[in-house]
């Protein structure tokens, strides 16, 4: 299933990618998905005249919070406690899983409903609960498809994007009955019919389950408020109906003040699904409406990331998935190749920092990129992903992996079309690079000239000036 633990022992990125690019259905689905969302996103972002200022504020708010994380976490703890909630601190996955399992056991229940949460996937919570005799039911439609199909999610936002409608119909027909209400006999592969089957299947679950587990998109230190953005309403079901709510949240999800939400509620939906606003956002503070509320604050490697001056910017990530949708490597390789709940460009920098680079897979991730810079341009919190990739490559010297990886992804560097992108990278790396790239990148620059890196590439100049008109 979808737990982090399952990914252990997976082969390195190039091997996974090589397999994925042979899968034409997967490539077709991914291409359609990434291009559709990319187009919608461009329209939604273009509507806001102050996008640049919002992006700058978001970056600064996140950096300011990370700089003062200790103070704000303590503040968060005080505010949640004052509002009748309970706060727990988990240094690693094992501890977080133990805390959650104990909380569930204390209620006497043996099943929980879950709203899609990457933090709980990261720590392998479902598997840990299973060992304790507790069944965790995923309630997001895509997560349900993934869970019933005994599969892994392949995209942050649309985890089942690798499945088409007839596959989903088969999964529902074969598996739903094992997990609760069976799929209707006459189920077609119409998206509407499939969604209706999921609605009936899950509603029984929502109305009968007394413990829920969630993540959160943001936590507000000033007020102790948690914020969840979603589309389907399964989040609202989990957050409001059960008697006990347990939220497992990475410590980097913090924002200092209530006002800061005004920035992120504009950036996240538009970057993520290309909508002006997602259908549902829920906020709650402590024990709302008489519910028992527990917040588990999760470190699990985040403080190691924080200690890396260049790498720490990855903690700004708000998991919008915009960087996945513009990434040429992700589009060809698919999310599974990254072997982590965090796929795509953000996964390539976050996973090896969170998990370390001991395994072959994790060591190969900093090479799962062409360094084209599209991810940086798309990122609403301005994470310079290429900069972090280069930085991490310096840590894991693995040029062979890079060559294999790029070949596997069908990517040939010396094509003219790639040159523009290479130049942009050059512009970004100017401050590190006198004329020749260091370390593992030297093999790359040794075979081509970078005689004079312009401060701005032609493409960037064109974008900025509308071809000289401005």
């Amino acid at each position, binding site marked *: 299933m979808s737990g982090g633990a399952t990914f252990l022992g997976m082969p390195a990125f190039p091997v996974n990618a090589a397999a994925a690019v042979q899968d034409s259905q997967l490539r077709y689905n991914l291409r359609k*998905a990434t291009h559709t969302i990319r187009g919608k996103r461009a329209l939604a972002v273009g509507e806001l005249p102050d996008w640049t200022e*919002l992006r700058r504020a978001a970056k600064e708010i996140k950096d300011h919070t*990370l700089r003062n994380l200790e103070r704000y976490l303590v503040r968060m703890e005080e505010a949640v406690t004052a509002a009748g909630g309970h706060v727990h601190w988990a240094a690693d996955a094992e501890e977080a899983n133990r805390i959650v399992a104990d909380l569930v056991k204390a209620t006497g229940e043996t099943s929980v409903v879950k709203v899609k949460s990457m933090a709980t996937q990261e720590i392998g919570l479902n598997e840990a609960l299973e060992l304790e005799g507790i069944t965790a039911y995923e309630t997001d*439609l895509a997560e349900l498809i993934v869970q019933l199909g005994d599969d892994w999610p392949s995209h942050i936002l649309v985890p089942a994007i690798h499945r088409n409608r007839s596959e989903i119909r088969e999964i529902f027909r074969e598996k739903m009955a094992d997990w609760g209400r069976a799929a209707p006999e006459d189920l077609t592969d119409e998206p509407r019919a499939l969604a209706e089957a999921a609605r009936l299947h899950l509603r029984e679950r929502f109305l009968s389950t007394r413990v829920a587990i969630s993540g959160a998109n943001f936590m507000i230190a000033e007020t102790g408020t948690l914020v969840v953005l979603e589309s*389907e309403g399964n989040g609202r079901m989990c957050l409001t109906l059960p008697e006990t709510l347990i939220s497992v949240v990475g410590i980097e999800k913090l924002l200092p003040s*209530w006002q800061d939400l005004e920035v992120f509620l*504009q950036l996240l939906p538009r970057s993520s699904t290309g909508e002006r606003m997602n259908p549902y956002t829920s906020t709650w503070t402590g024990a709302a409406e008489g519910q028992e509320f527990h917040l588990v604050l999760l470190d699990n490697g985040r*403080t190691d990331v924080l200690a890396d001056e260049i790498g720490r910017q990855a903690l700004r990530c708000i998991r919008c998935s915009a960087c996945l949708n513009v990434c040429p490597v992700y589009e060809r390789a698919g999310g599974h190749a990254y072997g982590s709940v965090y796929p795509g460009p953000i996964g390539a920098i976050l996973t090896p920092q969170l998990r370390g680079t001991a395994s072959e897979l994790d060591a190969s991730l900093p090479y799962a990129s062409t360094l084209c810079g599209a991810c940086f341009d798309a990122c609403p919190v301005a994470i310079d992903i290429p900069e972090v990739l280069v930085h991490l490559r310096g840590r894991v010297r693995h040029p062979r992996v890079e060559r294999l990886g790029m070949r596997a992804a069908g990517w040939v560097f010396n094509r003219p079309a790639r040159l523009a992108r290479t130049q942009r990278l050059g512009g970004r790396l100017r401050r590190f690079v006198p004329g020749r790239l260091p370390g593992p990148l030297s093999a790359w620059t040794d075979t081509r000239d970078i005689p004079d890196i312009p401060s701005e590439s032609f493409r960037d100049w064109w974008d900025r000036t509308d071809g000289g008109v401005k």
Partner: protein
Amino acid sequence: MNAAGSRERILSRIRSAVAGAGEVEITRAYRTSPDPAAAAGLVGLLAERVADYRAVVHVVDEGEAAATIAAALARRGATRLVAPDGLPPEWAPGEPVTDDPPLSAAELDRVDGVVTGCAVAIAETGTIVLDTGPGQGRRALTLLPDYHLCVVRAEQIVAGVPEAVGRLDPSRPLTWISGPSATSDIELNRVEGVHGPRTLEVVVIR
């Protein structure tokens, strides 16, 4: 390791991770108030943006509200309605079900729909925010029934997200609603009403 130990461990790791890092000032150069031209057309903008999410929208004068609501409910054949505490009685015709004592989830699941007011509405994004105040009820009331009719008064409409955040009280549980519930998980086809209401109908009183 015990939990109290972890708290100290995490906090001390953070302390040493950021030791020596510079302070970061926050620049808020983004828009926080609407341009005056937009402010004049908020009712129209809200109606347009809510309709963009495939919700049904009516813009009416105060005197027409009750009749518009009654007609909408009749069109749907919605007779068993929930009316939260504090809702003006003319907004929920007939004999609506009250939530006092609280209805069970199963009972809520069986009603035809719910009529509510709201706390704030955001024109630019087409979003309605409920804060469980008078005429809105607890969060489950607008979640379990398949139909939600929401009444918005002109003075509750703000231009953008910053104004809404400024007006709202974080100590109350908030539900921000932008159209009916929806999924795009199956080949990116939009399907309404996976778990929340399949239909959102909004009556804006200008």
